[in-house]
């Protein structure tokens, strides 16, 4: 949505775009399943976990109805699901998976190896709290486990973004300069299970956009036998990790290019960092995921009270879009960084990322919504209005007694 459209929408007191005539009311999970149907991957390997289940159930129906040609592997665990994904992707087949929470935790060992093997695939994540205590609701602790895996991490605000990012992620994962797993996160239940208007593209458009799958040394090609996953001694391990890291970094620039290509077919711009009313803002709320919608409402209401506030949303967490972030932040702005995850004994993850990049700005850290706790528009407004009282030496835990505010 252009800035001008945004203004119009604000004037109508509505933060989201009006559903266009071609939009369908679908959940985030359905939107991703639909994207995957259109992509029509060769192999999907999955294991059920809430709130990812509606994605794999919808896809199973596509398989049952013969609407895709995908080999659907119903694995006996997430560890094995990701292992099969790696085997399939390196064998020469376009491959996808989906998971959440404990499932992602269980996959982590393999995810690091997948990135090192440069196995390209898309993983949809219904972001959910980690046990314990066991909890099935929205939280970013699970994707934070993947933070240092080498995988690219994209995070959607809305169902439509989850759809768009899944399509872009397919190309990004397979880009010759990248060749990495790409995670596409959406908030559990809030986005996976709530229906929103989503402008789905034509099947042919998506198929054309993603094109053919290609890996340089497919294991199924016996004419070019390769040894993949060899044992590395100190002489070769570090250089290999350095190459892998360079690939993760390159994913930032490649995302920009591919998102540009996607904008041409979809008419939708998806930058790594998106701002809402930040131009003249004194206070900028920094966040990822569905809470950004709540924040936009809070910003509109605070602005009506004369407060110069804006929102900065990150759609990409790895590689961290530091140039884009720096470009959008002006000196003197107070940054309120909202994390839906903890790093016990230290600052929460998003705050650390932001604080490491800015000069000449003060930053405050807020932790909210763990295990699916709601953050209301009013609560965001209270934080902004009480910003002078936010401690500078510790994160504030919103809604927790003694946690400031």
């Amino acid at each position: 949505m252009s800035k001008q459209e945004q203004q119009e929408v604000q004037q109508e007191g509505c933060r989201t775009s009006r559903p266009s005539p071609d939009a369908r009311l679908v959940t985030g999970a359905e939107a991703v399943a639909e994207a995957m149907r259109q992509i029509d991957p060769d192999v999907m390997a999955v294991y059920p976990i809430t709130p990812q289940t509606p994605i794999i159930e919808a896809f199973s129906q596509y398989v049952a109805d013969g609407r895709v040609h995908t080999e659907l592997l119903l694995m006996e665990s997430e560890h094995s699901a990701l292992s099969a994904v790696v085997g399939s992707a390196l064998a020469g087949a376009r491959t996808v998976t989906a998971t959440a929470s404990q499932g992602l935790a269980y996959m982590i060992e393999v995810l690091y190896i997948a990135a090192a093997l440069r196995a390209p695939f898309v993983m949809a994540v219904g972001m959910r709290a980690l046990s314990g205590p066991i909890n099935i609701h929205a939280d970013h602790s699970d994707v934070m486990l993947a933070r240092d895996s080498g995988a690219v991490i994209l995070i959607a605000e809305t169902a439509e973004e989850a759809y768009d990012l899944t399509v872009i992620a397919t190309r990004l994962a397979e880009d010759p300069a990248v060749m990495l797993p790409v995670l596409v996160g959406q908030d559990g239940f809030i986005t996976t299970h709530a229906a929103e208007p989503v402008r789905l593209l034509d099947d042919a458009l998506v198929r054309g956009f993603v094109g053919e799958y290609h890996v340089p040394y497919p294991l199924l090609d016996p004419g070019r036998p390769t040894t993949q996953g060899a044992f590395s001694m100190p002489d070769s391990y570090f250089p290999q990790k350095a190459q892998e890291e360079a690939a993760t970094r390159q994913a930032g620039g490649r995302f920009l290019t591919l998102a540009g290509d996607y904008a041409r077919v979809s008419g939708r711009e998806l930058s790594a960092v998106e701002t809402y009313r930040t131009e003249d803002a004194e206070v900028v709320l920094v966040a990822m995921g569905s809470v950004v919608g709540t924040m936009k409402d809070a910003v509109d209401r605070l602005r009506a009270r004369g407060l110069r506030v804006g929102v900065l949303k990150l759609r990409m967490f790895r590689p961290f879009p530091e140039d884009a972030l720096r470009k959008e932040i002006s000196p003197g702005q107070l940054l309120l960084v909202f994390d839906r995850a903890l790093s016990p004994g230290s600052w929460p993850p998003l705050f650390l990322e932001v604080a490491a990049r800015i000069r000449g700005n003060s930053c405050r850290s807020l932790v909210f919504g763990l295990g699916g706790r709601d953050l209301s528009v009013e609560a965001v407004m209270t934080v902004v209005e009480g910003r002078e009282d936010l401690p500078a030496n510790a994160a504030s835990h919103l809604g927790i007694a003694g946690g400031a505010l």
Partner: protein
Amino acid sequence: MSTHITEPVFPRSIRAMAEHEEAEPRFLGGHALCAGCGIPMVVRTVLNSIDGPVVVVNATGCLEVATTRYPETAWNVPWLHVAFENAAAVMSGIEAADRALRRRGGAYTVESPTFVVFGGDGGTYDIGLQSLSGALDRGHRFLYVCYDNQAYMNTGIQRSGATPMGSRTATTPVGQAHSGSPRGRKDLTAIVAAHQIPYAAQASAVDFADLSRKVRRAVQMGGSAFLNVLTPCPLGWGFTAREGIAVVREAVETGLWPLYEVIEGRYRLTYEPDPRQSVDRFLATQTRFRHLGPDEKAAIQDTVDRDWHRLMDRVEADRRFFDRDDILTDQSFRGRQVGGSPL
């Protein structure tokens, strides 16, 4: 009972395997496996018994570490290692990829390759059992070869679920209060066979014709297949490099490692030691059993006898099945090989 098992399967002779290796080397020398290690003989026999393209997945362990020290490799076939406990799951993905590409018309080969997994006993009996079970349950077309050297060797000889009773390992050392592994191995081959897969068998690094025939039967059955191959480890078992085959021969002759196969759920002995030797003969060949006293040896003999008789009961119950004239005409398949060792 499927009809193809009525077709005979013959082992590939040592000479034919050597010629195959000459013409199309799949596993090359220059690796860092110990002198006297049984693994390369098993790998070569397996790969040289298979016609057409092969894709290999390897679990973490001695074989993987010692043959792929970057940037060198002993493998001349497509080869992938991902982790310790997931080799069967990784192969599930590769096999599914082949099916998907074939359906779409984008396959790389006219005929599907043979998919072979190599995993150690630790990667198969223990940490990889779940992924193996899942792959067998889904019925992927692949051959899983467990090279069973009866312990976690690559990490320095720790006890695994395959370690024989009484064996000294780094985690079941000889001490004042306890000595050696208190328990025997779990019956992995039976666990695998309980998945109702077309073919499961035990073989050894002593009778390579038997191993070759089992590989060829496994591949010919055309579904999930499993081979548990007793593979000597001089370092972990405590014998000199040249004694490996003789040591494994004692495991077979004492009945500690029975050679048998399970075809579509039916058990058949493929070699009957006659007479079955006292287990002492096996124990005496290796330093890992040197601390054992007479009582402990007797207890081990009891468990070997018990396991042998239980296996024989199964074999006996299925004998009628194999005596039918219309099936199983393999040369080595009919009748017992009694007396004189073919090994």
